[in-house]
């Protein structure tokens, strides 16, 4: 048993729903009790899809358990087929139905439906959402993909063809990433065979083998399938995730090699505003900002690389909740000389962030929440998704436009470069100080903000320092000196000094302690 406050991933059948909902003409019959229909609202409220997920729930109750839940399943499956007329059906069990062992696959076989029925075995007490999506996609492809059909007559003009694998419903910016990469491949002269799961029909999955290679956008979801397609039909697949300017360029080269095209033309016309903005003098202040990165493995590894190579940040921590891809994150952590955090325990992630005191957190909506509490700026880079992760505007993470989006999204939570200098310069000016209300609100002195102390991390009961001194107090001179430090770094200075005092067994913080701490933590 694991104590869980918030979860990063849903159960595996939600992963299956992400695949089914992304596709067309598929229906998923889920053996599940009342209440499991909550999952519909993920799609209709968070992603704001205009249609219900193509899922039928059997809704068994306690009184059915003594009776015939199997019959209930068969009725639901038969009715769903007649009502929705899918090209293929998925059948499976949610966590509770797994315990009653009705074997949806076997039951459905007995119905003799005239379409392919794919039975899903998704162990709910062992696996999670992304694994469920990956397994569902793999089972669908294994059951539906057919050998390549002979190429059509006009072979002499035949362009290289690829499939794009990975985008699903409820994915973090999948909709826009797909558009970005589709356009990029088109510009390179690569023809698109099938995109899956998003927008694919079961018939489309049948002709996956007609492509020359596969582009994998989200390994968590599509790697298993791409490996099978490689073994079965000899299709190679891309390994580079085109997040960031550098990775997008590397992706173009990789695709060009697989497609037998010249990469230079595509690279020559590639323009990234983000790359220039990062070099512009205003960005000087970004140098060495300490960032903590957490998310699914793919996005975390990609974000750390962009942070380090394209923004000039210092990666002080990296982690993932995707245990299946822990190796990739461990390898990345080695590059930055940090300890990887492989955990889906929200409390553990919070403790690590509090301990590392980064200046920016790149994480999920959970870390945004943690960062807010700790008073650290944060940008969201990965699922689990939130309604804000489905913006009305075009906002990819991948490709050159994606790189521009990353630059804006990561830099906006921070104070801008020139702003930082000006505030330093005018510090103490009668109208321009932290207690002055904004001029458009009439100026004047604001109430002393009570939030100064709430900036310090919530007392974590599990970080016990073995020392007599557990809290240090400030003498008036030191308190006064602290006020001279620009307010946007004052919280950090206060925290560092207090930590330094506690670590060194000092009960009273003097001006000396303040500067000792500054020297100690400063680099």
């Amino acid at each position, binding site marked *: 048993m694991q104590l869980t406050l*918030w979860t990063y991933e849903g159960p595996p059948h939600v992963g299956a729903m992400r695949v089914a909902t992304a596709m067309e003409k598929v229906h998923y019959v889920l053996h599940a009790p009342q209440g499991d229909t*909550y*999952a519909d*609202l993920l799609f209709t409220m968070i992603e704001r899809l205009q249609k*219900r997920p193509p899922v039928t729930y059997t809704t068994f109750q306690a009184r059915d358990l003594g009776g015939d839940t199997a019959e209930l399943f068969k009725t639901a499956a038969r009715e769903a087929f007649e009502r929705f007329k899918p090209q293929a059906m998925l059948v499976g069990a949610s966590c509770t139905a797994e315990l009653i062992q009705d074997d949806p696959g076997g039951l459905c076989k007995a119905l003799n439906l005239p379409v392919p029925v794919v039975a899903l075995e998704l162990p709910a007490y062992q696996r999670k959402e992304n694994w469920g999506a990956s397994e569902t996609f793999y089972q669908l492809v294994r059951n539906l993909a057919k050998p390549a059909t002979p190429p059509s007559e006009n072979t002499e003009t035949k362009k290289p063809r690829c499939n794009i694998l990975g985008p699903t419903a409820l994915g973090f910016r999948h909709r826009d990433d797909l558009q970005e990469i589709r356009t990029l491949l088109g510009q390179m002269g690569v023809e698109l065979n099938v995109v899956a799961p998003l927008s694919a029909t079961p018939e489309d999955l049948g002709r996956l083998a007609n492509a020359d290679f596969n582009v994998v956008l989200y390994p968590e979801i599509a790697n298993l399938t791409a490996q099978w397609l490689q073994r079965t039909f000899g299709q190679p697949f891309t390994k580079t995730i085109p997040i960031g300017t550098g990775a997008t360029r590397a992706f173009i080269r990789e695709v060009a090699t697989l497609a037998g095209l010249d990469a230079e033309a595509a690279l020559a016309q590639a323009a990234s505003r983000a790359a220039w903005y990062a070099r512009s003098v205003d960005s000087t202040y970004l140098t060495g900002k300490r960032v903590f990165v957490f998310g699914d493995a793919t996005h975390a590894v990609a974000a750390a690389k962009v942070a380090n190579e394209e923004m000039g940040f210092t990666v002080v921590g990296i982690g993932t909740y995707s245990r299946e891809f822990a190796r990739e994150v461990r390898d990345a952590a080695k590059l930055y000389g940090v300890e990887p955090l492989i955990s889906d325990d929200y409390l553990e992630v919070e403790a690590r962030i509090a301990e590392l005191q980064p200046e920016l957190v790149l994480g999920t909506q959970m870390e945004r*929440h943690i960062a807010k509490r700790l008073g650290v700026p944060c940008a969201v880079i990965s699922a689990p998704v939130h309604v804000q992760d489905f913006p009305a505007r075009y906002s990819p993470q991948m490709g050159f436009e994606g790189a521009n989006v990353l630059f804006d999204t990561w830099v906006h939570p921070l104070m801008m470069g020139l702003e930082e200098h000006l505030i330093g310069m005018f510090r103490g000016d009668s109208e321009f100080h932290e207690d002055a209300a904004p001029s458009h609100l009439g100026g004047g002195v604001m109430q002393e903000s009570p939030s100064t102390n709430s900036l310090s991390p919530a007392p974590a009961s599990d970080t016990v320092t073995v020392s007599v001194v557990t809290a240090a107090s400030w003498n008036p001179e030191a308190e006064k000196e602290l006020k001279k430090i620009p307010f946007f770094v004052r919280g950090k200075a206060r925290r560092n000094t207090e930590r330094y005092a506690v670590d060194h067994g000092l009960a009273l913080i003097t001006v000396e302690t303040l500067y000792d701490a500054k020297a100690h933590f400063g680099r």
Partner: protein
Amino acid sequence: MNAVAIPIRAVPTGGCSDAPVLRERGQHEVFCGLTGIIWLHRKIQDAFFLVVGSRTCAHLIQSAAGVMIFAEPRFATAIIDERDLAGLADANTELDRVVQQLLARRPEIKLLFLVGSCPSEVIKLDLARAAARLSTTFSPSVRVLNYSGSGIETTFTQGEDACLASMVPGLPVSAPHAPAELLVVGALADVVEDQFLRLFKQMGVERVRFFPPRRASDMAPVGPNTHMLLAQPFLADTARALQARGATLLAAPFPLGVEGTTLWLQAAARAFGIDEAAFDAAVAPATQRAKAALARARLALEGKSIFFFPDSQLEIPLARFLARELGMRLLEVGTPYLHRQNLAQELALLPEGTFLSEGQHVEKQLERCRAAQPDIVVCGLGLANPLESEGMTTKWAIELVFTPIQGFDQAADLAELFTRPLLRRMRLAA
């Protein structure tokens, strides 16, 4: 259908008292009882809710709560994993460890609920025994209770019923010959409780308690001196448990709208022997205010048709309010479970011929809804946007549970929950 029983007191007749009900079986597009934790943990401020369940349970509460609302929530899930399924003795040890870990983190917690789920019910994990064992371990600082919020046994608001019923045996016994006391049963927003408290006081009912209390240490005593008013329609088990402790149930409709609130308060006034004049004087100002405010809403809603999908068991009192005070036409009133006895007063007030349905076959109900072409549909979050995109106007039902809607001063707020979607559609079309 009509059970022939010897009437102990006048059973209301007329309206929909004997109306037929369409009972359906099929996919239920409703939440399970675990969802109640979202408002219950805000209500009882030193209680913690530990669901013993699966990752699905944790994901459900998190999603239904709108994801990560507040800092550290006072609810969590002990997620059962494969090792627990291997042997039950092990699961109990694991549960003890998790509770230990939780209480060490949250020393301010005074009342801990172990909340059963579908998986814990199916594997027959005995949470009652676990609660008793843990209560002994952590006594006197923490009391541990248990109830089931599982979807195989409870629908949405029934979770609150199960939670409150689990607290009843622990309520203190009222002193012999204690003066009569009013107990208002069902979670209400604090602001609504305070309003009711003032009204009761003005009419001369001084001894009023609320259940659940805001703090675990503030449990109302119960005995033959207790007169209880149900503030929510879904509390059948709690009412039965309190009756078994000697409390008397006051028959009344529910305090939605001016009419419902008046009759509800009146039931208490009568039980406490308050004369009509004192009652009228106490409720007159609030009644006037509410009526004036509702008159404005009536302009927007009168003659408009409405269709209820089943959700919270509040559907019948809501339909009664919308039909009688705002002039709306009821096309179908679906409810997950129709408790005829607790809703007798409500059914009597519902316009004769109202189409009632209980349970759900969501696909068939959607067909009826599309055919009926209602002006507004009340439904769950899974259906609302798809119906909007089909061109229907919807009101998500869950808001009716999370928003303070009871009492005179909330009557107009309640009406506004229905006028706003219509107004919005009009504005966006313009």
